[in-house]
């Protein structure tokens, strides 16, 4: 075997090794870090186990936001058919408002309350998360023109 062939073999071996090891690492980590997206109706239908992390999205139900104690806040995320109670401790995003779309990440408690660790509402008043738009379209509550307007943002 000459030097050139040896070099090629080493190169190929390095690639295979890195790719194989990487793929194994990626697949196992990916499996344990995937967050599924459910609507409140999905949660009611599928009985997601308490403690399993996932994301829920919908609209903040009008009149459901309650503050306290301390920095805790409780509200209901609804898709028009079902609602799920959410509790969260922290600073709310600037555009968190009743009737607006939100996505919350977290998990259900034993009592069926969604304990959110992160709330995503948008910076832009015109914006709706795509998942929420799709959900609203599915449940027939989507009004054309209330979502993404072309040309805004960067």
């Amino acid at each position: 075997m000459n030097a050139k062939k040896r070099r090629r073999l080493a190169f190929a071996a390095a690639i295979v090794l890195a790719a194989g090891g990487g793929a194994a690492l990626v697949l196992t980590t990916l499996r344990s870090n995937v967050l599924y997206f459910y609507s409140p109706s999905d949660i009611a239908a599928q009985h997601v186990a308490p403690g399993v992390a996932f994301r829920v999205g919908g609209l903040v139900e009008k009149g459901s936001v309650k503050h306290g104690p301390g920095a805790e806040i409780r509200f209901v995320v609804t898709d028009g058919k079902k609602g799920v109670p959410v509790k969260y401790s922290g600073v709310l995003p600037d555009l968190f408002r009743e009737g607006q779309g939100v996505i919350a990440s977290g998990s259900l408690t034993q009592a069926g309350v969604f304990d959110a660790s992160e709330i995503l509402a948008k910076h832009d008043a015109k914006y709706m998360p795509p998942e929420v738009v799709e959900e609203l379209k599915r449940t027939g509550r989507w009004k054309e023109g209330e979502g993404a307007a072309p040309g805004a943002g960067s």
Partner: protein
Amino acid sequence: MSGELGQLSLCLALALAIVMAGAGIVGTREHAARARRVATSATLGFAVFIALAFGLLTYAFIVSDFTIYDVASNSSTMKPLIYKITGVWGNHEGSMLLWMLVLAIFSAAAAFAQAGSARLTSGALGVQGLLAVAFLLFILFTSNPFLRLDPPPFEGSGMNPLLQDPGLAMHPPMLYIGYVGLSATFAYAASALIAGDREAHWARAARPFMLAAWIALTLGITLGSWWAYYDLGWGGFWFWDPVENAALMPWLVATALLHSALATERNGAFRTWTLLLAIGAFSLSLIGTFLVRSGVLTSVHSFAVDPERGEFILIILGLAIGGALALFAWRAPKLESGATFGTVSRESALLFNNVLLTAAMATVFIGTLYPLFLDAWSGTRISVGPPYFAITFAPIFVALLILVPFGPRLPWSQGDLKAVLRALAPAAGLAAVGFIVVAALAPSRAILAGLIFALALWVIGASAVDLWTKRKSRGLTAASLAAVLAHAGLGVTLMGVAGTTLWRAEALDVLRPGDSLSVGGYQLRLDDVEDASGSNWRGVRATLSLIANRQTVATLAPEKREFPNEDQSVTDTAIRTTGYSDIYVALGDQRGSGWTIRAYVNPLAPFIWFGGAIMALGGIAAFLGRIRARTGARVAAAVPAE
């Protein structure tokens, strides 16, 4: 008038870009000197018309010409002048025109520089012309910035307040210079394939573009992360968000490319691999543009989008990547393989660098795009959590950082591992001392912190050793200084990331004036909350006293701004930095008579961006070194001719 002139300029630029593409590619043939001259002139004309169009749009923004739809929907008369100007690219249409402007500047630079052979330059101009045609069609048909609005409104609807910030104002131009710089590199690579560049001259010719792109991407990512840190009010500096990953992936491949091209330039080693990286880096830039523009992924940074544009970019993406890979498959086997090298050599070090950087890119790529594929495949909607990226990305980068110090010390072709280890002994010593000191002093997670700081000091120490020995032997070139700075910057950033993630202190409470909360050894007392306003916003400003050891050391004033014209509110954090630690306060919503206050103490946070700036400085050193060497060579070549 300016709208019609702008429109006309874009159409003329399109016509010239078509000429540029055709003549440029014909010019790669041996005896087509005329086509090459046409390509050069067309390029310069194209650049002039794009600059004219961009100038006209900027003018329309400055004078608030609301008869232009783009201005009316993204600007307002009340904005400060600086944000009227940055507003030009603070929206989709304008940002695409900025993209074209950068492409035009790079093309003109390539036409003037005439680096490499005339055939190579001509082909590069041709490929740039093809890209210009594609993106000009995109602009004219889906994102025309000069569309008229009739009747014009009395007041524009304003710009996203989050973008009204000096950090973010410079962020898009930096990223675009990065993306488009990679398009120039791509153009040279494609031209090399078309023209059959046997000696791999293209790598040398494209080097300044590669470096400019890398510097801009490094600065762009650093600025973006800094902006997210102080503007989003979450205290974090990186969220593994699709939009952030879209910029990180090209950076990783561009970094790999910068390294492998060194070997290619020297003796043709890795020549096909380097070509592939050039294609890959630009493809990832296009994928990044697609992800950001199409809004297919939910992101903390995503803004309003239009699916039609996403499709158009996807078509350009398919044609560019598909075309380039087909060209690669057809022509690359005809290139001879380069020189051989020993197992212990700089080439080997570069090989490891490339394998690791590519692997890091692959994990980010999979994590970012997996939700998209799964949604298309089965309709299941998921997102990939940040822990995935931390777990897969971190080990690869640790391996990379362990190996970084070896690269610059190893000679080309064949090296002596023992000699290198001897030379690096001081760096290893520094790392060992660092481990002991940090592990002894660390408030928490002592062993992990000790190991990470040892790794950072290993990299920084090796850079210092390099600087010292090369200065002593008078072997310090711009290129070696660049490696010293870029590698040391990586170590500095690592320290910042480690300090912030391991030792951050966080507190959240509802405070009434007079109440205080404690965070990381400090007391924060809310003194007052009062109304505040600016030219286009109203809001509240809280005044907090920062108390350490019963003494007030500083006053912090975070704000919450409402932009009535845009119907948005923005958190303006207050950060007090000591240079090695940040005290960070964000004002939340009102709860009864109190206000939510979120405070962090982020040890070493400034190091994150400081390191990024050092890395960019390294790039700048290499860039200036190249430019000087080139002008020097040209002068030397010109003298005997006289």
